[in-house]
C-alpha cells in the first residue's frame, strides 16, 4: 500500500476500524458515538459497519460508561470508551481510579481490564467552559493505569490499536486541536512500542537544549525549534507519547548531551506530571545540567474564557523565551 495523507482524526478512525476488524471483542461505547460518529467524528461510520451491538450509543453518564465497560471487560470484551470532552471525565473519575485501575491488582492477576478510555483534550478550539481541559496528570498520578497521548496522525493510527491490544487500562489522550492536522501514513512501516518516548527532532552535536512535550504541544514545540534554528539555535525535541509510566531514558540521554531542558505542557504546572518529570531529570542529570530545568505550562488558574486562551496556552514565544532563559545560564 502506498502512504496516505490523513488527518489525526482519520488516523484514529482508521485505527479503531482496524482494531474492530482484528478482534470481534472490541466494542466502542460512549455518548453520540453511533449514528453521529461522535462530536468529532472519530467513530464515523463504525456503527454503520459493525452494528449497534459493537458501537453503543450510551445513556448520558460518564460513570455509567466506564462502570459498564469494567463489567464488559470482566465478560471478555475490550471496550473502547469515548469521553466526549476532557471536562466530562470527572463524573467517571471514581470508576476509573478506584475500579478500572484496581481490578488487576485487587485480583492479583486473575482479572484483566483491557479498557481504553479515549479523551479528546486540551484547548485552542475556542470552546466554552469544560471543553478545553488537560486532565492527564490526574491519571498519571494513579497507579494501575497507563496514560498515553498521540501527537500526530501516524501515532494516532498505531497507538490507538496498541492501546486496544494492551491488556491493561489505557487512558488515551487525543489532542483535539490537532484533529485536523495531516501526516503521511505508511502502514508498512512498523510503529514503535506504545510506551516509548521518541526523539522527534534530533539536534545533532550542535544542540544546546532539549525540549520535551506531548500531545498538542509537540507541534508548537517543533515550530519553535524551526524558528530557533533560523536564529542559529539547535533544539532537540522529544515527544513523550507515554505519560505514565514515563519513558525517560531518551530524555536523560538527550539532556546529558545538551545540558539543558525545557518541559512544555498546556496543563497547570502545579502538582503535574511535568513537575515530576523535571524533578526526575534534575536528580538524574544533576551533574549534566548547565541550567535549571524550566517549565512552560498553563497557569495555575482555571482554563479561561476562549478569548483569553491565546494568552493562556504556551506558544512559540513563551517557548523561545524559555530557550533564551536556559541559554543565559
Amino acid at each position, binding site marked *: 500500500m502506498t502512504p496516505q495523507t490523513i488527518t489525526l482524526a482519520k488516523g484514529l478512525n482508521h485505527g479503531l476500524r482496524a482494531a474492530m476488524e482484528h478482534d470481534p471483542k472490541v466494542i466502542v461505547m460512549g455518548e453520540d458515538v453511533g449514528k*453521529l*460518529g461522535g462530536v468529532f467524528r472519530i467513530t464515523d461510520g463504525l456503527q454503520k459497519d459493525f452494528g449497534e451491538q459493537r458501537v453503543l450509543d450510551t445513556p448520558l453518564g460518564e460513570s455509567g460508561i466506564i462502570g459498564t465497560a469494567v463489567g464488559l471487560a470482566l465478560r471478555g470484551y475490550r471496550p473502547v470508551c469515548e469521553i466526549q470532552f476532557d471536562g466530562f471525565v470527572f463524573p467517571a473519575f471514581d470508576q476509573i481510579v478506584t475500579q478500572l485501575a484496581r481490578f488487576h491488582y485487587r485480583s492479583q492477576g486473575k482479572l484483566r481490564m483491557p479498557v481504553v478510555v479515549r479523551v479528546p483534550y486540551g484547548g485552542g478550539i475556542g470552546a466554552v467552559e469544560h471543553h478545553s481541559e488537560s486532565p492527564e496528570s490526574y491519571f498519571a498520578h494513579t497507579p494501575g493505569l497507563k496514560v498515553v497521548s498521540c501527537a500526530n496522525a501516524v501515532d494516532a493510527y498505531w497507538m490507538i490499536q496498541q492501546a486496544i491490544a494492551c491488556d491493561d487500562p489505557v487512558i488515551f489522550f487525543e489532542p483535539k486541536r490537532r484533529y485536523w492536522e495531516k501526516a503521511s501514513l505508511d502502514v508498512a512501516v512498523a510503529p514503535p512500542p506504545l510506551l516509548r518516548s521518541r526523539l522527534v527532532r534530533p539536534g545533532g552535536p550542535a544542540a544546546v537544549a532539549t525540549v520535551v512535550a506531548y500531545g498538542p504541544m509537540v507541534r508548537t514545540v517543533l515550530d519553535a525549534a524551526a524558528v530557533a534554528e533560523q536564529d542559529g539555535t539547535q533544539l532537540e525535541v522529544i515527544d513523550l507519547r507515554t505519560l505514565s509510566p514515563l519513558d525517560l531514558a531518551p530524555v536523560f540521554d538527550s539532556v546529558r548531551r545538551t545540558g539543558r531542558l525545557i518541559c512544555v505542557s498546556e496543563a497547570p504546572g502545579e502538582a503535574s506530571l511535568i513537575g515530576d518529570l523535571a524533578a526526575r531529570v534534575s536528580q538524574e542529570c544533576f551533574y549534566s545540567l548547565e541550567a535549571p530545568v524550566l517549565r512552560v505550562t498553563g497557569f495555575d488558574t482555571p482554563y479561561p474564557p476562549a478569548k483569553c486562551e491565546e494568552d493562556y496556552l504556551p506558544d512559540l514565544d513563551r517557548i523561545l*523565551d524559555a530557550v533564551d532563559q536556559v541559554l543565559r545560564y
Partner: protein
Amino acid sequence: MGPIVGAAMEFDGPHSPQQVIAGLRATSEGEDLVQVLTPEGQRVAHPQFDLEISAAEIQALYRDMVLIRRADREANALQRQGQLGLWAPLLGQEAAQIGAGRAMAPQDMAFPSYREHGVAWCRGVDPTELFGIFRGIDQGSWDPVSTGFQLYSIVVGSQGLHATGYAMGQRLDGKIGNGETSEATICFFGDGASSQGDVHEAFVWASVYDAPVVFFCQNNQWAISASLDRQTRVPLYRRARGYGFPGIRVDGNDVLAVLSVTRWALRECRTGNGPVLIEACTYRMDAHTTSDDPTRYRLADELEEWKLKDPLERVRVHLVREGLAGPEFFDGLATEADELARRLREYCTSMPVPGPERIFSKIYAEPPPSLAAARADYLAYHASFAEGEH
C-alpha cells in the same frame, strides 16, 4: 405483555424494547399529559390545572415567547456570522421556559442548564448578558443573586445538587410555610441529564430533606444525537414516585399548562410539600448547538410533525380566534422584535475583548500571593511585546 399482576410487585410494563419505544412515542401525547391549550389553539378543561387568565396575561406570555424566539434566532445568525463562537438554540422550547419562568415569584431561585434563555428572559437577564459565554469572553456575566437566576451549568446534571442544596438552605432559613412570601427553587435539566448520577442524588437529597425544589425536566426528545429511548424505557415523570414525591407530565409546548402546573408545583414547595418533578414534553426544533448536524441522526419528518405543535402558533391562533388581541398588538410586537434583534446585533459586535489579566482574575476570594506573582510576571512578559522587547 400486559401489566404483571402480583400483590407485591410494582410494574406496569411494557417490557420489550420494541414495546417500550412504542410506549414512549405514544405517551408523549397520551392521556397523562396536562394540556389546557391544544395545538389548534383551543382551550380545554383540566380537572386540576385549569387556569383563569386574562387576555393581557396571555398577550404577555405570547410576547415573551415571540421575543425570546427572535433573540434566539438572532443569536444563531450571529454565530453563523462568526460573532459568537457557539450558540445553543432554544427554538421549540419557548413555552416550557416562559411558562416555567413566569410561574416563578421574585424571591424564587432558578438553576438553569445552558439552554434556558427563555427562563433568563423572565428573570430579567437580558439576552446580551448571555452572549459573553457564547462569544468566549466570560462564563456568565449576570448577577445570580439579584436576578434569582444562577449561572449556566455546562456539566450536565451538576446543577441538580446545587438547586437541592440551595432549597435545603431555604428551608433551614425558615422561608417555607409562610404563604405567598415563601421561597422555592426550580432546577432545569434535560432528558439526557436524567441519566446522570447527580440528578438521582438530587432526588434523594431533596426528598430526604423535604427541600422546596421543583425539578423541571425539559424532555426535548434528544440529548444531542441520543433519542429518548437511550435514557429510559418509560416516561421520565414516573421516576419521582420511586422517591416518594409527585411527578407530573405537562405539554411543554402549551405555555398555559406549563404555567399552571409549575405554579402549582412551586406552591407545593412553598408550603413544605416539596420536592416535585415536572416533565415538560417538548422538542428541540433546531440543532443541539451550532456545532451540531442533526441530519445525521434524525429525520426531517419528525420536525415537521412537531411544527404542528409549535408553542407560539397555538397561542397566536387562540388570541386571534378568541378576539383577545388585534392586529395592532401583533404589529407592535413585530416591531419590538425587530428592534430587539437590532440591539442584540449591535451589542454583539461591540463587546469588549478581555486582556491577559482576565486569566488571573477572581479565582479566589482571598487570593494567595503566589498568584499575584504569577500574574505580575505574565503581565510584564506580555507588556514586553508591546514595548518591542521581543
